[in-house]
């Protein structure tokens, strides 16, 4: 028998038939990596045994770029970090500079910021929902989600003049008040939107194929998630109660009544359901903010034309669409930041990918990347 297994003049057959892991290049031009993310997968059949992230294809040197601009001039570029959640990036940067200068943002401006922030969060989650569903083969949800996102985009355009990269806030407050009719249009949207979320949930949450695809896939426990520094819905999907809006309230978030949805098992389904519920909470926040919108100025009165913060440093973080979005600014007393760093949640959340993917199948890699909601503009900066 052993002789039979021995091919003539070669090593024993067992040796000859030794299986080898296969390396698969996943991206950067792959339809499911949401941008120019690249992963090198090591596969045993269809099972993933290793994943190596390779980033930097979209590196534009934004932080360095900003150090060569005066403080106000640097604002629009941060929209280009996470280009589907631009307003929140803008809020983070502007907030950091305001903290550095110890400027008190007027109440009305704070409320307007909350409204726009939460609309942006909904818009981001909608785009995420659509693409995530598309990755798992449910193509129709993408179009429904984009249809609703379009309404928000129109609201942004009416308010800020741009749809995607709005350059929303100047340092100190907001530029212009709502245009006439905006309030009504926004309320119409808010009244209609929860019903649309129900529809997405009918198409996905209840669907057995969806549940089978996402339940128990890419599990990451709460401890692991904290250890890896994950934040945002990715962290809350693992059941950790942490939301910057609750933990370190900024821009009057302490005045709104909203819940922080949590997952239980930390799988793809939980991360999905957390984001969907978050959209409902955002609707609640916007409604409350619209109802309780105080009168008052939009910009602080004593803000000098030339912004020159005192020497020092400040760290300000907002609950971005992807997680804890922090801006660290060091000023040397001139009109340009001496050093600027962005704590980009997508970048940190990407750390969790290896834990989620190893041991799963190739199809689960797609589900995991989708459930992380990364935007490469933010990862590479």
């Amino acid at each position, binding site marked *: 028998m052993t002789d039979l297994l021995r091919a003539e003049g070669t090593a024993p057959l067992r040796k000859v038939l030794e299986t080898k892991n296969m390396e698969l290049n996943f991206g950067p031009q792959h339809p499911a990596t949401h941008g120019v993310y690249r992963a090198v997968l090591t596969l045993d059949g269809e099972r993933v045994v290793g994943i190596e992230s390779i980033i930097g294809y979209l590196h534009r040197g934004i932080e360095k770029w900003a150090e060569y601009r005066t403080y106000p001039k640097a604002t629009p570029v941060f929209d280009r970090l996470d280009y589907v959640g631009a307003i929140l990036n803008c809020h983070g940067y502007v907030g950091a500079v305001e903290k550095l200068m110890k400027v008190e943002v007027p109440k009305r401006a704070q409320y307007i910021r909350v409204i726009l922030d939460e609309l942006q969060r909904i818009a981001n989650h909608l785009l995420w929902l659509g693409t995530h569903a598309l990755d798992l083969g449910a193509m129709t949800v993408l179009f429904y989600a984009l249809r609703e996102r379009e309404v928000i985009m129109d609201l942004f355009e009416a308010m800020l003049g741009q749809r995607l990269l709005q350059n929303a806030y100047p340092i100190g407050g907001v530029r212009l008040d709502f245009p006439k009719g905006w309030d009504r249009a926004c309320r119409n949207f808010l009244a209609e939107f929860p019903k649309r979320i129900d529809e997405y949930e009918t198409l996905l949450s209840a*669907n057995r194929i969806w549940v089978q695809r996402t339940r128990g896939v890419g599990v990451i426990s709460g401890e692991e998630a904290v250890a890896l520094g994950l934040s945002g819905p990715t962290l809350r999907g693992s059941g950790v109660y942490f939301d910057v809006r609750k933990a370190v309230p900024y821009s009057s978030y302490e005045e709104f009544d909203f819940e922080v949805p949590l997952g239980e098992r930390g799988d793809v389904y939980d991360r999905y359901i957390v984001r969907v519920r978050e959209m409902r909470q955002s609707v609640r926040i916007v409604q409350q903010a619209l109802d309780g919108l105080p009168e008052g100025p939009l910009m602080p009165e004593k803000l000098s034309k030339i912004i020159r913060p005192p020497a020092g440093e400040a760290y300000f973080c907002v609950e971005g669409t992807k997680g804890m979005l922090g801006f660290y600014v060091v000023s040397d007393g001139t009109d340009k930041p001496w050093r600027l760093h962005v704590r980009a949640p997508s970048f940190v959340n990407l750390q969790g990918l290896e834990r989620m993917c190893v041991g799963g199948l190739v199809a689960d890699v797609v589900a995991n990347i989708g459930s992380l909601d990364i935007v490469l503009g933010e990862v590479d900066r």
Partner: protein
Amino acid sequence: MDWNSPFMLTVGLPLLKIVILLGVVAFCVAYTVWLERRLLGFFQSRVGPNRVGPAGLIQPIADGLKLILKEDIIPTNARPFLFRIAPIFAVVPAFAGFAIVAFAPPAGPRASFLISDANIGILYLLAITSLGVFGIVLGGWASGSKYPLFGSLRSASQMLSYEVPLTFSVLSVILMAGSFRLDDIIQAQGKLPFLVPLILAFGVYVISAVAETNRAPFDLPEAESELVGGFHTEYSGMRFAFYFLAEYANVVLVCCVATSLFLGGYKIPFLPYETLLAAHPWTVSLIGLAVFAVKAVAFLYFYIWIRATFPRYRYDQLLKIGWKVLLPISLLNLLLVAGIKLAMLR
């Protein structure tokens, strides 16, 4: 020309029919693509292709032209000969399957609406459609690239595992009708389409047919979000068009076969076709053709509706469903049908 000469009867007439059928099927396939894109658009709250011609009706022709004119790229790592011929392997079985489909009642002894009235029609159909997988496997392997390889491997295992329940569900139809001839099966549904008594088999057939034709939610071999394009990732131009054609020809074939096997073919229940046929053969034939087309399009609509609604299964889940759910159900169904048949014979 003498239509009654033996040469015309055995060679000329079938050849003529084949040419006509090829043309009609190619046309239908092109417009299936158009219909799918339009309907998907409607399901997704948009309008779909509407630029080329009225309601986008010239779109398939424009697409075809574009694909023909495109550069045909053969990757460096590919095995050129196999890479070139693989699409043909996919396309030929898809079209050959139409040979035994009876589209309408015959209008005369020599004017039947089917090419070959083979008495083992169904067996031929099952055999020829499972040949299609060769084109996919060969194409994926010959591309010399990893994504197509994955796609073709998936495709092979998927088609193999769904072939079994599909065959069993068709077997129960054969048992009911007592014949392998497609026309006999349609005749047996004169009063009641088999959809009603064989609802289980129909369900199994639909699911496995969707899987067989690699369509959503079982479109794993070409899952564009995982495997980019699956087995045809490296193909372009004409050869890609061939795969495309094969896929949609298979879809149309499945619609036609499902119509014949389960929906009663060209029959309308309780309409005495035979007596009417003797009186006005051509009118009745054409009405039968229309009935067949309506049923097939309704089935196609369902196909597209499913694609618009459901997410995609994962590879292992798909195989699990095939072997652990569909196979037992179809076996059970076969036993049931056999039992009923036996009881009726007693």
